[in-house]
């Protein structure tokens, strides 16, 4: 390479690096403002370099369920149940790796799920919106979802919530931290909407029960 080209390349590299630094500073400032130190916790997560194995395995699961159960409603319920089982165990790992202190209210919980939780497991962030007046219901909006790459719903499965496992995961995870919730799908990209929207409604906060009686 000639020296002119070399200097051009290094200049480009420097510009790119400057841009990256600026982005990092902006993100860092936002992170600081929001009070979550989530950038560092993501270093402890083992990443699968390619989400396709994950996507295809999930597709195989849904296909197996459809063949076995045949009824779309049954499949939805089974996916939700599987998600619940996952969520119950997932929350342990999440709390261990993310180092977040306990959330003050449901608003903070929803933010943590959307920004840290989804990023830690699925590699995508969601956004929170549509809070109701009491602060007990909100919507999690996902624009990018690794579960639905390459997927199209056929005509005979139109009632299927393909990503229903996600609603089960959130429900299970929140139940383990003493919040009973109801999670439903408002918008689904596979049905023609432009994003995935999950509505999370806090039903009640169950205080932790001491499992042993005092006298015995």
């Amino acid at each position: 390479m000639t020296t002119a080209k070399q200097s051009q390349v290094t200049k480009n590299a420097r510009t790119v690096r400057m841009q990256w630094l600026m982005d990092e500073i902006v993100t860092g400032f936002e992170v600081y403002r929001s009070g979550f130190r989530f950038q560092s916790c993501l270093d402890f997560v083992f990443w699968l370099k390619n989400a396709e194995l994950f996507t295809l395995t999930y597709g195989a699961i849904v296909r197996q369920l459809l063949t076995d159960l045949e009824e779309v409603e049954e499949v939805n319920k089974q996916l939700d149940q599987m998600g619940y089982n996952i969520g119950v165990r997932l929350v342990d790992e999440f709390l261990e790796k993310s180092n977040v202190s306990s959330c003050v209210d449901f608003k903070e919980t929803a933010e943590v799920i959307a920004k840290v939780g989804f990023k830690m497991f699925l590699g995508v962030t969601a956004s929170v919106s549509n809070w109701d007046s009491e602060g007990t219901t909100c919507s999690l909006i996902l624009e990018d979802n690794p579960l639905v790459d390459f997927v199209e719903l056929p005509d005979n499965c139109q009632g299927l919530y393909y990503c229903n496992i996600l609603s089960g995961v959130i429900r299970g995870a929140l139940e383990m931290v003493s919040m009973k919730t109801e999670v439903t799908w408002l918008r689904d990209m596979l049905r023609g909407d432009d994003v995935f929207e999950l509505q999370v409604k806090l039903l009640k906060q169950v205080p932790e029960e001491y499992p042993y009686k005092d006298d015995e």
Partner: protein
Amino acid sequence: MIGVGKIKQYTNVLDRPIGKGKQEVSLSAFAFLFSELVQYNQTQVDNIAELERRLEDAGYAVGARVLELLCHREKGNRRETRLLGILSFIHSTVWKVLFGKVADSLEKGTEHEDEYMISEKELLVNRFISIPKDMGAFNCGAFVAGIVRGVLDNSGFPAVVTAHFVPVDGQHRPRTTILIKFAEEVLQREARLG
């Protein structure tokens, strides 16, 4: 990020760009999903052979799709017609894309002409799974065996693929070997092609 445009909505899924395969998910997400798959299948069957068969069938579907995806993306739509070609495709490309590394080894069986083995010190799917004593020889690698069978079958190399544990001296956990036994017609075709 501020100002990122929304992804264009394609009406037909076949028109959407395939993507470079750079999206990442966490290993634990996959491990949880796989454990649910195994647990669900355990409720549906009575014995181990059935369970392995169901896992293999699930893997077969994955393998068929992986082959299509990789042929288009990595190999520019060229097919493998030779035995060694398809085996090295599985051993390096498929393994690299699915598990992030090439398989540990590819060997030819000494006793039979039609047997080949792909070995892995610790299969990704087996990493977080412990087999209780009463399940004996059950191996969750049956899922990966299914993937390999899916790729081979759909490339025109019918074979019987199974997963086995092979204890290794000096190592606490046994090695996993995927045993591939090709059908007669594959060997005859190989011999004809010279």
